């Protein structure tokens, strides 16, 4: 029982971040028809930019931070992340979209990913970093850990889950209720129509590239202190979010968020749960969700009518 509770809480906390990345992937796919391979690295970029301003590149000695400095760091990190997201779209993705060149945008989104990874790697030279905690969770419970139904759980996990759900709600609300969101929906359903009625399509899409990165980055920053964070963590975040978005066919924000939670839960369950003597263990936790997604894609494609368009 205690293990189940622990799996659920850690799974949801990880899944919340995946979910927000999935929301971003879905939105971008529906707006432009592309898959943004650099998403996870953009999130990592925001996390590391925040870390740079908050604590520099040296190994972090303190586990907590002054809130003022942290908020400033977060703001700078998010602004940089949004600017890079929007700028890379305008410079390297849109030209290929206009030409209808799939190879072009696949190559440029991957190149952006590796340029960002390399940039972080050249600045932060240690294999992984421990992110300082802006909120003093370690004052709650035993050093930030409470017992719930016999399980020891980091208090931060609840905060991350709540924050992620809140951000997903904000994203869904923005999409449904604001002028900006309705404009995005118009673009998603018919680009030419949207352009025809005078929507500034390019600007709105570029803005969205910036905003979805920042959205996921907030959750990633909140979750970062739970475990050492590395460049690879960011890339995997992007990949898992993408898998979640694929599972729900780049659906609505809530569907994508739920799929992200599902991936997080599956991962935590595979990592920890044992049925009788049978346990898979941690090495399967990352691979099986990916394999499941691949199998699902294959199943759908074999069942569907041919959908081969020009490359």
């Amino acid at each position, binding site marked *: 029982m205690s293990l189940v509770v622990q799996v659920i809480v850690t799974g949801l906390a990880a899944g919340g971040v995946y979910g927000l990345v999935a929301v971003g992937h879905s939105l971008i796919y529906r707006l432009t028809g592309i898959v943004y391979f650099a998403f996870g690295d953009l999130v990592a970029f925001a996390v590391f930019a925040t870390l740079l301003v908050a604590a520099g590149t040296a190994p972090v000695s303190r586990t907590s931070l002054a809130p003022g400095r942290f908020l400033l760091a977060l703001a700078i990190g998010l602004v940089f992340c949004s600017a890079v997201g929007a700028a890379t779209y305008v410079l390297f993705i849109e030209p290929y979209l206009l030409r209808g*060149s799939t190879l072009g945008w696949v190559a440029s989104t991957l190149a952006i990913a590796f340029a*960002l990874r390399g940039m972080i790697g050249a600045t932060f030279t240690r294999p992984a970093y421990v992110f300082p905690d802006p909120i003093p969770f370690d004052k709650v419970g035993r050093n930030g850990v409470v017992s719930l139904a016999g399980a020891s759980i980091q208090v931060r996990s609840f905060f991350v889950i709540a924050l992620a759900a809140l951000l997903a709600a904000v994203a869904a609300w923005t999409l449904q209720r604001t002028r900006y969101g309705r404009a995005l929906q118009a673009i998603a359903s018919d680009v030419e129509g949207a352009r025809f009625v005078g929507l500034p399509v390019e600007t709105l899409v570029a803005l969205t590239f910036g905003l979805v990165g920042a959205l996921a980055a907030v959750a990633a920053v909140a979750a970062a202190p739970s475990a050492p964070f590395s460049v690879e963590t960011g890339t995997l975040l992007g990949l898992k979010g993408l898998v979640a978005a694929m599972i729900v066919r780049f659906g609505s924000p809530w569907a994508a968020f739920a799929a992200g939670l599902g991936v997080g839960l599956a991962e935590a369950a595979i990592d920890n749960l044992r049925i009788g003597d049978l346990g898979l263990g941690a090495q399967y936790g990352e691979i099986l969700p990916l394999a499941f997604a691949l199998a699902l894609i294959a199943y759908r494609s074999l069942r569907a*009518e041919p*959908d081969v368009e020009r490359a």
Partner: protein
Amino acid sequence: MSSALIEHTRSALAAGAREARGAWHLRATLAAAVVAAALLAPAVLPLAGRMPDIAAFVYLAVAAVGLTYAVGLAGIPSLGQGAFLGIGAFAEAIARAKGGWPLLPALLLGLGAAAAAGVLTGLATGRLRSAFVAVSTWILAWIVALTLISFPGISGGAQGLVLPQAEVLGHPLSPTAHYELGVALLVLVIVGYLIIAPRAPGLALAAARERSSAAVGLGVPVARFRLGAFTASAAIAGLAGALGVELAQVADPSGYDATLSFKLFVAVILGGARTPLGPVAGLLVISAFSHAAERLGTLRGLPPGRLEEMLTGYGLLLVLGLGGAGLLPAARAWWRRSWGDPARRQAPIRGEPLARVEHPAPLTTRRLSKRFGNLVALSELDLELSPGSVHALIGPNGSGKTTALNLLVGRLRPDQGTVAVGGEALDGLTTRGRAFHGIVGTRQTTEIFSDLTVLESVLVGAGLRRRHSGAFRTLFATPKARREAAAARRRALSALEFVGLAGELGRPSSELSAHGQRLLMLASALATEPRVLLLDEPAAGAGTAELEHLADLLDGLRKRGLALLVIEHNLRFVRRIADKVSVLAAGRLIASGSLAEVAVDPAVRTAYLGRQRL
């Protein structure tokens, strides 16, 4: 008997040699000289200390050129080449280190394992749109990378799998031997690409890459060809991976991460996806980057490899930002601008007149019906198209004309009813199967293969009835394949001569006028040797002179015994060409007969012409 066989073989070989001599030119001599120099380099240059690195580079180049089979030839954005490399490497390493297999079977196992993974991935993703193919192969790359790292039982953990020293005829395989082998393999893979790309299988793949729907319409087995290209690409990677671990004598599980797939894809895009030498150039540039990055990194006291990703990413972004055709195509365009293009000067070749239909046959439909949800698109259509006649199908927009055509060529499946040609039922046959039976249709929108020249576009259609020139036979230029290629070329030239495009053979088809592109579509369809030809608004947007030209062409086809169905809105054109007219309204056939008969039919007047007078 046997002497006749020998004589036959001798003459075939002589013909092959003659053809090869005829095709030999300065560029081939230069290429041969470069290959010879590359093979001799280790004997002349003091490279012994760096040989392992150079040989490893050559193997990586083999995998990168292999990737062009998928990316360049078929247009499949595969991000999983590193995974296939890893699968090949570890299949061979496990067989050698744990199973104690000898060298050759282990290498074949590596190739086979990667090919099998390629077939599975290709089958699973073959019908996806290309964005999803990129995602799926990217996920595959990660699965393989994570599996190798997380399962030391398979991959040998941190030490990797150590291989016994390989011996060939009692001699250990030195890095130099690997280098020679790698260069030979590289040449084979490049020459293979150069042979396939401009011939029937390559043209079919290019057509599928440009306009999948139009290629399917001409009977190209798009899915099979794409699967073949993808599998070849994976198999080449598997072999390169297997040889690579043999060279290193150890299989390192951390060496096949997603970065490797990225690097290979980048090499292809950077160098130019549609040139087999491009990836080699791309890889050279990338290793120059990593060299520079290592220097810079040591200066700044960074751990090795940190700057490499960044510089590779920046370099690729720079090339992509500049326009992104790739290094080699850009260099070639520059060369052509400065020195002129000898390939463009091509003497016009005359084709023979278009032949009569050999076995003319009528096409009949019985009670053909199709509904989309609640909408009845077509209801119980009975139609008969006779050889040597033009049948016009008219009706208001949305009356089911195009649906009828799509049902006839097999693009849609009917809910009920049958289609038969010459008494032979076609139900259940694919578009390709129907094309084999001589039923081909063109689409309403102009669909041309903009990357191909005029002649190449028509060769795609002329390739339908190939039986002995699949990828392998084309690769080895068997006598039958060469004969078929010559016959296909004759058919294509006849079709082009017939529509009047014989003077434009070498022109890119995207440069043709709108009317020229319409004629090109017609010629491509005619090159499949149809008995029944279905044209969806062939005259849309044509001017008066062009309409007259088109009408003359249809007359010519009628005289050659084709059964023609023409969907048309322009009634003046219908009056000029049609022997018989059928009128559809709301999915039902409401009248059939000569245009004069139909025009006075009261049902037609109310349903279609309203109060207008014809």
